[in-house]
């Protein structure tokens, strides 16, 4: 079983300690979690790209119903698009996934799409190890804090925050409003599913962002999927930044 990637070195930790200054205002004492989290099988790290996405301001309403037919998604100019998620080689990730993003009304709106012939959702509560099943992960890195939001096909959210070098605090709540739309039968592998999609609104203040043009946050997004044959693949947009446009 593959272990999470570790990059710690003494030097880096020291430098990080110097750099970290007052970030993670909402970081609370880490709450110990059950053994499921500490032994969760890590997905492969194989998303490959990333850069800076210029995120447009909302130009129309978005209704969180799992459908992206709202003016906020479809109006002229459209949302920022990651394009098809990719493997580190640059090859398209399969099954296909992508993400679209806009901001406004104090929220970051994210639409996630996952083609999926066999939708498997970890049967876990909020803040459980959703990554045991098919799931998306969004990571926001800012002011020495890393905030992760995992979301499953059934709309369950696991969110956590950590200071550089620290452990994850799952008591942090992103306040993300999530709606999903599933075309298929979750956790039934005997039939053919088609896809699942997530529409979510993340309060910007939970990300310690002001919601102003020009604001930037580190960002990555990826999706892991287990196929009918049991093989597991993770692909993503990579690691980069979101910049809020006017």
């Amino acid at each position, binding site marked *: 079983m593959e272990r999470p990637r570790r990059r710690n070195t003494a030097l880096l930790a020291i430098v990080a300690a110097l750099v970290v200054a007052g970030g993670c205002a909402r970081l609370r004492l880490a709450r110990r979690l059950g053994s499921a989290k500490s032994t969760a099988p890590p997905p492969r790290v194989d998303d490959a790209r990333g850069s800076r996405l210029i995120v447009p301001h909302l130009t129309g309403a978005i209704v969180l119903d799992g459908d992206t037919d709202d003016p906020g998604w479809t109006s002229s100019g459209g949302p920022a698009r990651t*394009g098809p998620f990719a493997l580190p080689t640059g090859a398209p990730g399969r099954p296909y996934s992508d993400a679209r993003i806009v901001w406004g009304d104090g929220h970051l709106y994210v639409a996630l799409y996952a083609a999926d*012939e066999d939708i498997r959702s970890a049967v876990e509560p909020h803040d459980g190890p959703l990554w045991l099943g098919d799931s998306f992960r969004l990571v926001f890195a800012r002011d020495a804090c890393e905030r*992760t939001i995992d979301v499953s096909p059934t709309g369950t959210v696991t969110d956590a925050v950590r200071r*550089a*070098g620290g452990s994850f605090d799952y008591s942090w709540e992103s306040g993300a409003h999530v709606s999903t739309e599933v075309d298929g*039968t979750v956790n039934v592998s005997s039939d053919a599913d088609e896809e699942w999609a997530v529409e979510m609104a993340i309060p910007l203040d939970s990300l310690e962002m002001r919601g102003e043009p020009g604001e930037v946050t580190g960002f*990555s997004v990826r999706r892991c999927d287990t196929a009918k044959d049991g093989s597991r693949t993770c692909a993503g947009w990579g690691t*980069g930044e979101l910049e809020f446009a006017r």
Partner: protein
Amino acid sequence: MERIPGSTVWRHLLTAFVLLLSGASFAALVSCASDGEAPPDSAIAGGGAGSATFACSFCVASEQCHGGICAQLGGDTYCVPACLEGRACRGDRQCLAATDVRGNEVRVCVPRGDVCAGPDGTGAAPRGRGSTARAAYDGGAPVTGFVGPSGGSASRLYFAVVGDTRPPTEDDTPSYPLAIITRIYAHIEALSPRPLFAISTGDYVFAAPRGTEGATQLDLYLGARKRYSGTLFPAMGNHECTGFTDSNCGIGNADGVTNNFTAFVSKLLTPIHQAEPYYEIDIGAPNGTWTAKLLFVAANAWTASQATWLEQAMSKPTTYTFLIRHEGASADTAPGVKPSEAIMRSHPYTLAIVGHSHTYERSGAREVLVGNGGAPLSGSKNYGFAVVSQSADGAVAVDMIDYASGLADTNFHFALRADGTAAP
């Protein structure tokens, strides 16, 4: 080696230290895995990894090009840099007008000489898409005859199959896979011999069922389909109803008459003189040595009338019987899958041709899945289409053609006799 003056050395050392500090700082921010309690792989691993890798790498969308443009060049689509005003191309490239993957006029830096024919744009199978072996497709003996909206006659059965062409998400018309489906139909037209007709396995849109984008997307599809001069016989998919696999459209059915259903009927069925989403097309040999019927089943517009029609149609003896239905037997939440499968089991047939899953495979002894017509791919295989070809011994062979190269997947080939048993 060139000597570096002392002051420069200090500057370099200082720069190196600053770079080390800043790089390490960022790395530290992103490398905090410490106690195994963390969600796996959450670390942000370095900023802005997107590099300018548009050295003629294959693409289907500009988002894949890291700031470059996915442009149509030399019969394929490749990532190339834009040449904006005041920004010259690299020495080995020249700024030329081109068309991007969505049909917009653009100016891009194109390699001088061979257009994207170097090591990175080989013109052969694009990189990073598996190791599928491909070879030129042999369409076999010439075909004569004519198959129009009412069927027809042909010296042998020889037709193309396209399936599942839609954007990934609802109403995202700008992401309609126009370049892919255009190329697919261009390849079909260019096959030698040219298929007498084509069939499609459904899902031409992804649009709000009561909105107007469905009609717009169908227009895009029809624009691409014009690249092929033969008749197209379409099956209805779940996205021509509400989008859900378990949806059921039509008068009297649970989901009623959606705009997508109406647009499908008016734009795809009316041209072939069909009023219902289920219908039969008959084809035969001019000398009467064989007959074939193609039965288009609409599992997302399932009614008792359709069941009766299917029962009667399958009872009619023909040498070959092809069932074309959007959902395969395993996608049995579609209202018409189980009942139509039950009818099929009680009658002879040659092959069921289905879509729904966005890949291709022989999905059963007598079922082939062709769903790789531009919709977001679910498997490792590439976009493309199938060709069904009747040989002199009466067997029908099925091959898959890659949309980018026009070559056949040599790992995918099977043949059936008219009764559906395997042929050598």
